[in-house]
């Protein structure tokens, strides 16, 4: 870290770093309460394009509190604000939304070391190759049965385990699993997880709603650990997602032979 860089330098630089086109209609004030040797208290007022820096906390809309070294790291992009918050190293008091938006109010801090650094090029590309995936006999049979609201497992002729979703072989016994048995449609939840982010569909760019609930379900007729991977109704109260609760599938009206022909599983209320 640049030893000559001080907290005050950074605070004063807000004036020159303003993104004027972004703050031209913004009126707000940000307080900085920085502890440590280099610390101090400042208020950065934004008034329709103008940036005014005052000493002390003068009734700002939000106060950002952290120690001096963290503040410098944060400014240089070496400390992730989300991690810093969860680690208790960054505290936000007041209107957190303003704090969040303020990232866009100012350009990134650049260390002036007297040298001009040539800007290197970074390319943005999307990699995509359209695919046509065959399902084959086993997967194809299973998926076709979903159209008929039937969940099929295939049985290992050696150990008797019921594989659902079915695979060509029992990996454990290393033999072909050829006997079909209908299982479920109800089962028991073995584990559920609430997911707060979603990866976009690589082809459509569509991003599903979050949070969603992903789950392992032991369908009736199958034995642990041969669970089925699906989703639980996202509106289910999270405290009800207990191991062992009974669930049943909710089928889509229009079924195409896809794992999503089952919309999700819902809890069977007693």
């Amino acid at each position: 870290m640049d030893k000559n860089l001080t907290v005050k330098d950074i605070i004063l630089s807000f004036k020159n770093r303003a993104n004027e086109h972004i703050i031209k209609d913004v009126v707000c004030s940000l307080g900085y309460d920085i502890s440590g040797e280099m610390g101090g208290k400042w208020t950065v007022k934004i008034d329709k394009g103008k940036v005014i820096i005052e000493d002390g906390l003068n009734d700002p809309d939000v106060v950002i509190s952290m120690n001096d070294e963290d503040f410098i790291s944060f400014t240089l992009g070496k400390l992730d604000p989300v991690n810093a918050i969860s680690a208790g190293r960054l505290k936000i008091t007041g209107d957190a939304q303003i704090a969040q938006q303020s990232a866009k109010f100012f350009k990134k801090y650049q260390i002036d070391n007297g040298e001009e650094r040539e800007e290197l090029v970074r390319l943005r590309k999307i990699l995509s190759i359209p695919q046509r995936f065959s399902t084959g006999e086993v997967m194809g049979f299973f998926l076709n049965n979903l159209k008929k609201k039937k969940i099929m497992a295939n049985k290992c002729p050696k150990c008797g385990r019921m594989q659902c979703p079915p695979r060509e072989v029992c990996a454990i016994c290393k033999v072909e699993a050829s006997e079909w048995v209908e299982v479920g449609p109800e089962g028991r939840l073995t584990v559920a997880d609430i997911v707060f982010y979603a990866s976009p569909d690589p082809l459509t760019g569509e991003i599903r709603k979050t949070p969603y609930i992903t789950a392992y379900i032991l369908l009736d007729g199958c034995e642990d650990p041969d669970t089925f991977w699906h989703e639980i109704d996202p509106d289910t109260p999270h405290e009800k997602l207990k191991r062992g609760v009974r669930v049943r599938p909710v089928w889509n009206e229009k079924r195409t032979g896809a794992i999503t022909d089952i919309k999700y599983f819902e809890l069977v209320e007693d």
Partner: protein
Amino acid sequence: MEKIGICAFSQTSVESDKWYQRFQEMAFEVVKDLLEQTSLDFSDSGIEMTISVSDDVFDARTISDNAMTDVLGAHYRCEEKVAQEGLQAIYYACSVINSGIADVVMVVGHCKESQAKSRNMVTHMAFDPFYARPVGLDFQIAAALQAQTFLDRANIGEDELAQIVVRARERGSKNVLYPNLTPVSVEEVIASKYLAKPIRELHAYPVSDGAVGFILASEKKAKEICKDPVWVTGVGCSMDTYFPGNGDLINLGSLKKAVSRTLDRANTSLDSIDIYEFSDQYAYQLPLYLTNLGFCNLEDVSSFIKNGGLDEKNINLSGGMLIGAPLILGGLFRVVEAIKQLKGISENQIQDPKTAIVQSSMGPAAQFNSAVVLSRDN
């Protein structure tokens, strides 16, 4: 090197669109056949290691071998992957066996070229995003640049290229495992449309789906597993630059080095080999390889082809890769054909061959080459 025995071989049919199978099923078909032929199982006294050959981008899955372990009998066992050209799996198996890590190794490769909208989109991805992709390179276009260089410098033209395709298809059509392959005439080849000049549609190997596999074992173990193993007596490979423009497009250093290393390890010479199987993805490649390996030179390559040099020297008796094989499995499918000749069971059988060399290439303009020498007991 210590010779390694190939105790069994198997392949699926090679088709342009195996819509009815997912790639796990193709591989499983091969595995079942190999187990049946050898009566081996996946125990410590059976197949100790599996080496799979697949490609992440062709399979559209990262770490593509992860999806294969179940059907390859690799659950809780040792599975390794080759993402280079499949012949490298034979090299790998020989290394494993000769180092004493395992006595019996199964090699299985799979690829469905039909899965992607175009295999050229897949090989486009092999190039870097800065220099090459934006200017539109893929393996086929790199091949076309190489072909153009070759046609400019060698005494060879449309007629000879067409003759190579006609011969390949005629020989390949005898093989029931290539059901989509039909014989063609010289006129049809010359009339087929350009893909990337001078490469025409019929100059290119067909879009191919298929799987192929082998059981390899140490000499002692191989003799226990089967009566008449075919021996791998030499393996070798060589890599040229990633930037094809930096090399001499028709002076194939990596081909020569791969072949000479392989022959040295097998303690033999090119002239002493009975049959040659080259992985020619495009019609121009076979004569290009032959000029590089000294079968003929740039001046007499035309007369070599026209006067039946290929038949006389037992080159690509099977038809070569022009009959079809997924890109990454060209070499392994050629090994199958070489073994069939050595065992006397080929559709294009010649009398009593004892040794064979198989070559394969991968990367733009045959950047990477590998080879194996095979032989049988008298």
